[in-house]
């Protein structure tokens, strides 16, 4: 038997969290096949949410000097520089191909760019483990930190299977993407989606995004881009489906995404059971330690 509260398909997380008249669940579909790596999403997010800078250093690994998502980075554009896989088909972005013959095609390298963000999981581990109730489920089905409640215990940080939420060292509290909760309340789309010039970041009702994503994958497969695949869209995955899901052109781990993330709470029942049994075994061990000497004393010579 699986515990439906903690894992598995969950059609309406907002209503299950107590929002009676919840609007449609919204999310992101990030189509990385049209991402041009402009980082407008990173900038728009920082500006709108007034996030402080988090280091002006160069990573030296690619055009990605942001590194990854964190307390002060709620959108992160990954730049993957890799050899062109054998038999790969050029993306039909520009047609017809007007480049000089063999100029760029022979470099043997390609770039994959992808704008990463909090997944707003259906079963969110960060929310489950939060001891203060600071992390909560909004009426839009998203997951948000209440900064006036968070006491910086930091347990949400290792709980996240995607490595998204983080404590800001200068502040102590945990921060992450709110899916622009303030903008949603005003009927606006999140800042990153608004700023994206190629519609790589699409915002909308999750059901609609899932349909649109399925069509896009079919379209790419027909065009010969067989490596196109959706990531995080399935309602029966380890986190009950992501509120923000992706179209990728390689394995998830290449982009720094876990291939099969699972909400840790799925195993919470087993954990408490074993903790209870272990507590009993501790008591039994102690009882044995007192009983054995008493028994041997009565049996042995005085």
């Amino acid at each position, binding site marked *: 038997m699986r515990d439906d509260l903690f894992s598995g398909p969950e059609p309406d997380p907002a209503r299950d969290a107590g929002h009676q008249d919840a609007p449609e669940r919204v999310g992101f579909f990030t189509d990385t096949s049209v991402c041009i790596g402009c980082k407008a999403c990173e900038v728009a997010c920082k500006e709108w949410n007034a996030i402080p800078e988090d280091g002006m250093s160069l990573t030296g690994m690619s055009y990605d000097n942001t590194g*990854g998502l964190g307390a002060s980075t709620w959108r992160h554009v990954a730049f993957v520089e890799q050899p062109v896989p054998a038999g790969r088909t050029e993306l039909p972005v520009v047609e017809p191909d007007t480049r000089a013959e063999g100029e760029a095609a022979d470099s043997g390298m390609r770039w994959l760019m992808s704008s990463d963000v909090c997944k707003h999981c259906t079963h969110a581990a960060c929310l489950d483990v939060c001891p203060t109730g600071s992390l909560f489920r909004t009426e839009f089905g998203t997951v948000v930190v209440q900064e006036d409640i968070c006491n910086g215990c930091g347990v949400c940080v290792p709980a996240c299977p995607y490595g998204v939420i983080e404590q800001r060292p200068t502040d102590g509290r945990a921060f992450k993407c709110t899916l622009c909760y303030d903008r949603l309340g005003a009927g606006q789309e999140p800042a990153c989606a608004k700023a994206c010039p190629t519609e790589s970041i699409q915002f909308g009702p999750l059901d609609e995004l899932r349909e649109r994503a399925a069509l896009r994958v079919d379209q790419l497969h027909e065009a010969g881009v067989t490596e196109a695949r959706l990531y995080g869209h399935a309602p029966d995955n380890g986190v009950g489906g992501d509120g923000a899901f992706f179209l990728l052109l390689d394995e998830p781990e290449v982009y720094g995404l876990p291939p099969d993330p699972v909400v840790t709470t799925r195993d919470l029942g087993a954990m*408490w059971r*074993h903790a209870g049994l272990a*507590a009993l075994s501790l008591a039994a061990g102690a009882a044995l330690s*007192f009983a054995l000497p008493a028994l041997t004393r009565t049996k042995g010579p005085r």
Partner: protein
Amino acid sequence: MTSGPPAARTDSYYGRPIIKAPSWAPHDIAGYFFLGGLAGAGSVLAAGAHLTGRPTTAKALKVSSLAAVSLSAAALIHDLGRPSRFPNMLRVFKPTSPMSMGSWLLSAYGPAAGAAALTSVTGLLPRAGASATAAAAVLGPVLATYTAVLAADTAVPAWHGAHRELPYLFAASATAAASGMALVTGPLRENTPARYGAVVAAVGEDAALRAAERRLGSVAVTYREGRAGRLMRAARALTAAGTAGAVLFGHRSRTAAATAGIALLAGSVCTRFGVFAAGIASAEDPAHTVGPQREAVARRTTLSQ
């Protein structure tokens, strides 16, 4: 070697971690694990000593449990990003959050341990003292093992992967620490149960760790290498030496008993810091996140075929 940026590895994003390791300070949180264990198991042994007419040991363990639980609460508060907001821990009662359950447990256990110690030291209200001793002994084992859930209820491969075994490891390590404390503080004529306790703990700890490593597969290496490996080896040596010392010489010499007790306490410290370090190491290497997840995908694919 060619110049220019390193080519992306195919199994990770430039070798960067996928999950984030906790930013907890080891001395705060591994220290919290150790102190919670010492306090909790100490309360159980204290109740046993109280019941079986070993008053010196009972009093010493009650005092050490109060000291340990006070220090553990201090460590927990010290590690908060906003220590002044510690009371928010009791804002909700949330069974899905081990940290929430632990906070409530601490706020029930702490006063019980405090009352047990105070009545024992002052000799006042013996009947209330006996009830407090009993309450602390009931809550103590849970205090000692719930911290394993706190660690395991995360995405950290070395902790979550061993979520079935970690509570038993923590229970055994807590028993070792409390037995050590009883050997250090108790007179020779009272220390036989502590010597038995050390044996039970040493055997249990070894079995739990072996089971955890079997379960973890490729991730088990995080318990054997680096800082975690050194700590776990030290833990094993100290626990074995302490147990042997307690069994062979613990009933003959006060010095031998105390030395064995200190070794057992140090062994328990090393186990907790070792488990903590293994978790951090497993979180920082993306291979430990990707590897087991790839295996899970492969298992599902085989099953569905």
